């Protein structure tokens, strides 16, 4: 019995031999080795058990001879003990290990964004055509003053107004969409290059994640946020100064409260240089920062980073958890210029499946309660709120801003633009699309210029759509939608959720 596995393949790969040209491209393209060419017949022989339905072979088969389908194998029905749960039990009974998964929570929890509807103007108040009239998407992230004081200084014969209030340094972004932190090590260097080029072109920000900053990305530093996480990989004074802001990563939506283990196999020479750790040893990120056990300690690190960088803005990334409003309040009081909220659908390169699927709360609720808490306490101006973790479209961005976010961060959507098919096998390190891998034969599949162009296209298209939404709402600046719960209505949400969101049910007028 030793070699028998009970887990049957999730997909079935079939080759249409009438169409197959025996070119062997499928065998070459698959990072997991699904296709093996049979020397005698000349046809590929697929091993379906390795397939993740990433469509790499399907995309590159010149004859369209490959079919990937769901394995129709029937399981005795049980709504309680689903085939998926049974398979998990079998795998763990075979290995004794913790199950890992990549990308975000895929469980069928309520998707609140899909139960929110935006308003539009009709008759009594005119809508605006964004194609003909200016529409302001530019956003400033960072600490805004409690009040603005103006003084009048002599100017020729008269006087002219001059800003008396000393402003903190702000980050200017041309659209309310930034890129979430994805480390070099979890994704390939070509992904980082694509993101950096696109961020510069779009006038927005990319985020290094925890893996340090590769020397090739130095020219893009005005559009790069460098991250300082618990493992402190690649963190030194020059690195901190290499970006336009620093982010302290406390938590991540996909794995709140969990550290990270980048396995030694992924620490190749280049990753080792960037992370400043020896090749082949595990890169372990502790679950907490061991110099942060309190809000006071967080303040200490925020100001240590400000001291080391000449007072650049500091962002603090936290996962959306039950007590997120109080935590965010503490983060703002600790001196953060930006609070980055990551919801429970946020992506990851690898997380224990049990954590990914069962810990944290939806970003929609987190935005609303954090925004409200900061307003109630009179400190909303002290920090910007970035919402992330489950932002899949421009509609989600608009809804998140209406719930109170200053801007949104996207990660999974960017990778999908680069070819990711959400197969969720990032943790295997053999991504056939060259995204979540360090194998040179795979990473070279992603051309950074092509990648940058696709990301620029995506974000530009979303920005146009946001402008259309604003126009329909009759406002001409994203600023006017921010925290405007009145422009949202709910459809099919329970009363308590509506109250938390500050949203009326559809059908109720003003």
């Amino acid at each position, binding site marked *: 019995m030793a070699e028998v596995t009970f887990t049957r393949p999730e997909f079935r790969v079939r080759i249409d031999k009438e169409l197959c040209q025996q070119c062997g491209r499928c065998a070459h393209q698959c990072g997991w080795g699904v296709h093996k060419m049979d020397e005698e017949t000349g046809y590929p022989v697929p091993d379906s058990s390795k397939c993740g339905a990433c469509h790499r072979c399907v995309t590159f088969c010149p004859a369209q001879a490959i079919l990937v389908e769901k394995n129709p194998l029937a399981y005795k029905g049980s709504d309680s003990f689903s085939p998926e749960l049974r398979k998990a039990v079998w795998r763990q009974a075979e290995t004794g290990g913790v199950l890992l998964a990549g990308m975000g929570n895929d469980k069928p929890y309520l998707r609140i964004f899909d139960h929110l509807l935006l308003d539009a103007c009709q008759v009594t108040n005119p809508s605006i055509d964004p194609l003909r009239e200016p529409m302001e998407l530019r956003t400033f992230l960072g600490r805004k003053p409690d009040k603005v004081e103006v003084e009048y200084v002599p100017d020729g014969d008269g006087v002219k107004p001059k800003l008396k209030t000393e402003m903190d340094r702000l980050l200017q972004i041309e659209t309310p969409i930034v890129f979430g932190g994805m480390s070099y090590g979890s994704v390939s260097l070509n992904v980082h290059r694509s993101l950096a080029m696109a961020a510069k072109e779009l006038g927005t920000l990319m985020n290094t994640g925890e893996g340090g900053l590769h020397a090739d990305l130095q020219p893009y530093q005005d559009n790069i946020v460098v991250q300082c996480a618990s493992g402190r990989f690649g963190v*030194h004074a020059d690195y901190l100064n290499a970006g336009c802001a620093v982010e302290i990563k406390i938590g991540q939506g996909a794995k709140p409260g969990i550290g990270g283990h980048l*396995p*030694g196999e992924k620490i190749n020479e280049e990753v080792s240089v960037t992370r400043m750790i020896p090749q082949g040893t595990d890169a372990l990120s502790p679950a907490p920062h*061991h*110099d942060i056990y309190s809000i006071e300690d967080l303040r200490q690190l925020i100001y240590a980073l400000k001291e080391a*960088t000449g007072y650049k803005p500091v962002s603090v990334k936290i996962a959306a958890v039950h007590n997120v409003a109080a935590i965010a309040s503490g983060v703002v009081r600790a001196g953060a210029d930006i609070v980055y909220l990551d919801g429970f659908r946020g992506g990851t390169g690898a997380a224990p499946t049990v954590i990914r699927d069962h810990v944290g709360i939806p970003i929609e609720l987190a935005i609303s309660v954090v925004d409200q808490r900061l307003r109630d306490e009179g400190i909303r101006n002290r920090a910007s709120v970035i919402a992330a973790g489950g932002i899949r479209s421009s509609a989600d961005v608009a809804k998140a801003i209406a719930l109170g976010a200053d801007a949104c961060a996207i990660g999974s959507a960017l990778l999908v633009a680069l070819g990711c098919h959400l197969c969720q096998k990032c943790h295997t390190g053999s991504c056939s699309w060259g995204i979540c891998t360090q194998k040179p034969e795979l990473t070279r599949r992603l051309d950074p210029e092509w990648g940058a162009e696709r990301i620029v296209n995506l974000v530009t298209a979303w920005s146009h759509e946001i402008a259309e939404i604003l126009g329909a709402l009759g406002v001409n600046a994203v600023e006017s939608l921010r925290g405007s719960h009145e422009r949202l209505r709910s459809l099919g949400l329970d009363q308590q959720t509506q109250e938390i969101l500050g949203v009326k049910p559809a059908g109720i007028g003003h």
Partner: protein
Amino acid sequence: MSPDSATIRRVPTGPARRGPIGAEPARKVAGQPGTDKGAVSHEGTQARIDAGGVYYKTLNEQIREEMLNGAQTVILENVNGQRYIGGGLSGEDVRVVINGVPGNDLATFMTGPTLIVNENAQDGVANTMNSGLVVINGDAGDVLGYGMRGGRLYVRGDVGYRVGIHMKAYEDQRPAMVIGGKARDFFGEYMAGGELVLLGLGSDGEDIVGSYLGTGMHGGVIFVRGEVAEHQLGKEVSIAPLSAAEQSRVEELVRDFAGWMGLDAEEILERRFIKIFPYTHRPYGKLYAY
């Protein structure tokens, strides 16, 4: 003077600060935002700053300013709790001498300089330090050398919890820390590289280190002068005698440490050292089902 009875200067703690609940009593010691710069006097390439009552941000600006203006040595007088001294500072041939007790996060992200503290230090010394030397002529607090990647930290006296946590090495950057006195729990936790040396001077038969020594350790090495009981060890580490090369490395570090502290290195080295090391570089390699 025998090293085991080496006098460690301790700063007596004062009476508890009293004041109305919720209101901070008026104080000028650590400085307030917007306070004036400290008085400076110059002597050759040496600058002396009176840090008494100067706000930490102002003081650190002053230190950087003096160094930009060519000061090789900056002496700080009347330091009392100012944070981040040496934070992000860089330069190979520069030195900061601190008279008084500096605040938390001394030498954070520092690259190169030498910092000498003639009193006790607080928490977070050498946090994520890249290179340089920090000498503390007294005790120091918790979480020293967190994520430290290079340079050396010498502490004459005792240290608190989680010291040397997640220290790491990279190519020729090999951080080293020598602690003259005792250390508390979680010494060398999560350690990924570098060297920790614990001397336990003046321990008078007490345990020289707390529990969970080297928990989660997956790189680097800890040298302890004396014995450690099995129950004090983290589950990822083992004890072994030193190889000849390791013994000479310990001697090198101890001699350098003793030179800075004015102690007798040979007397310290009379006692046997043990080595604590991780038995795997992949402590969690078998944790997951791939």
